């Protein structure tokens, strides 16, 4: 059952420092309210995966791997490939992570990342059909959180997208309903590049890309994922607080602009 979380013990003084700074328009790491932390993305870090990407978002570190294998399609989409996103909060990433089945936070993260990729139609799933109703390619995106310093959703979304862009599969032709692989190596058919931007509300002020200290004092967060046409394709509010309609509209419009910059920067690094 979903339950109120015990906040990790942060000294009251430290919490107060973080909140006071944000109140003054400053932040613990000397960023401005709308500044994103430095982001680096490295592709192809795991050779055995079809695709992989490692993202640093400040000190947050996330690795995503893509594996592709044939499988049975869902009955309601017989001629489309299958996309599955999973996230592991591995215990080495944070003192608060524990080994075991995924908890609601990792499920939420995986589902928000999944929604961004799926709803923006980032992958042309129709091109991954081998034999309609019988066999299609399944794309597994596994997100590994390696170091948790806040804003895991954005880092995970970026790593997942990087791994998909990086992924290669063998070209194939279909003989008697079975895929016959060719020498040629092709990328996954991508048609959109969704980018997530998360903002948090702390003491009535809104800041972008929260670090861990800021997440620990936030009242709530809002993630806005947009595609290359600037259309919003996924959103998720989290945390125990609330937002006014005006705050939401302001966050949405900032997020759209920020995502545009970030997408351009990322694609220029990747291609």
């Amino acid at each position, binding site marked *: 059952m979903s339950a*109120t979380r*015990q906040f990790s013990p942060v000294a009251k003084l430290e919490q107060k420092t973080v909140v006071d700074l944000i109140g003054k328009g400053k932040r613990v790491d000397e960023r401005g309210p709308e500044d994103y932390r430095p982001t680096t993305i490295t592709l192809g870090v795991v050779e055995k995966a079809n695709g992989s990407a490692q993202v640093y978002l400040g000190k947050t570190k996330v690795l995503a791997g893509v594996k592709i294998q044939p499988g049975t399609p869902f009955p309601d989409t017989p001629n489309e490939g299958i996309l599955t996103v999973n996230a592991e909060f591995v215990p080495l990433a944070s003192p608060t992570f524990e080994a075991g089945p995924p908890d609601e936070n990792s499920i939420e993260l*995986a589902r928000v990342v999944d929604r961004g990729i799926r709803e923006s139609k980032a992958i042309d799933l129709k091109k991954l059909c081998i034999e309609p109703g019988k066999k299609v390619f399944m794309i597994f995106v596994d997100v590994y959180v390696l170091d948790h310093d806040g804003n895991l959703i954005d880092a995970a979304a970026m790593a997942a997208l990087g791994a998909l862009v990086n992924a290669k599969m063998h070209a194939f032709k279909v003989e008697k309903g079975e895929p016959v692989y060719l020498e040629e190596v092709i990328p996954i058919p991508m048609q959109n590049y969704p980018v997530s931007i998360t903002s948090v509300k702390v003491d009535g002020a809104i800041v972008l890309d929260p670090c861990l200290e800021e997440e620990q004092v936030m009242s709530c967060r809002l993630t806005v994922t947009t595609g290359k046409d600037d*259309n919003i394709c*996924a959103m998720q509010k989290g945390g125990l607080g*609330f937002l006014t309609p005006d705050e939401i509209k302001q966050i949405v419009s900032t997020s759209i602009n920020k995502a545009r910059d970030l997408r351009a920067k990322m694609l220029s690094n990747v291609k």
Partner: protein
Amino acid sequence: MDNKQVRLLDDNGLRVDGRRIDELRPLKIEVGTLDKADGSAYVEHGRNKILAAVYGPREAHPKHIALADRAVIRCRYHMAPFSTDERKSPAPSRRELELSKVIREALEPAVMSEYFPRSTIDIFIEVLQADAGTRCAGITAAALALADAGIPMRELVAGCAAGKVDGKVVLDLSDVEDKQGDADLPVALMPKSNVVSLLQMDGSLTEEEFKQALDMSIDACRRIHEMQREALRHRYHVVKDEVDKEEEATEVSA
């Protein structure tokens, strides 16, 4: 199989079930439908049939989950195996786990949990029949169940989704519209302070369409809030009448 695209809006701008674009599905709300629960409510929102129950505040169990400064609020959103077209496995799915979390986060800001440290408040939402918009209807029901349990609240919480079908922003998607539409935007509102405590979105919306959909769903939440208040009032008029009758009876026998 080609997705046979049914026209979701006709020439008069009416929807598959005959509604206008800003029209809610019919709602039926009952408070206090269960005997054993501390608070309960039943909501029919279109063809959604949803039962919510609240137990608590009660002793935290297991003890280590207790918080020193407020009650732990727990929430389980669950769909009955027969609630959907295809049978749904009764084991909680990833979707249900996510929804349990976002529903809890939508209700918690309204509950004065600081009055009950070291205890738990358990919210159970069972979807008996699903027809799009179950999380919102679940929130509408659960807020009433919390109030019915006598738990102090800052205000009620009401939920309603907006979305986009056939290129138009519309209110309160039905099952067909949700499956074949272009976007879905579930919202929960705390109407008195005019703040949003649940916000999710999937599909594709421009910034303008989003603003329009958000305003539309907020307005609908206000309408649902009025119905919630009416249902609560009705519930306590019934209780009051019963008490009055009993008092009358004792007076006569005395």
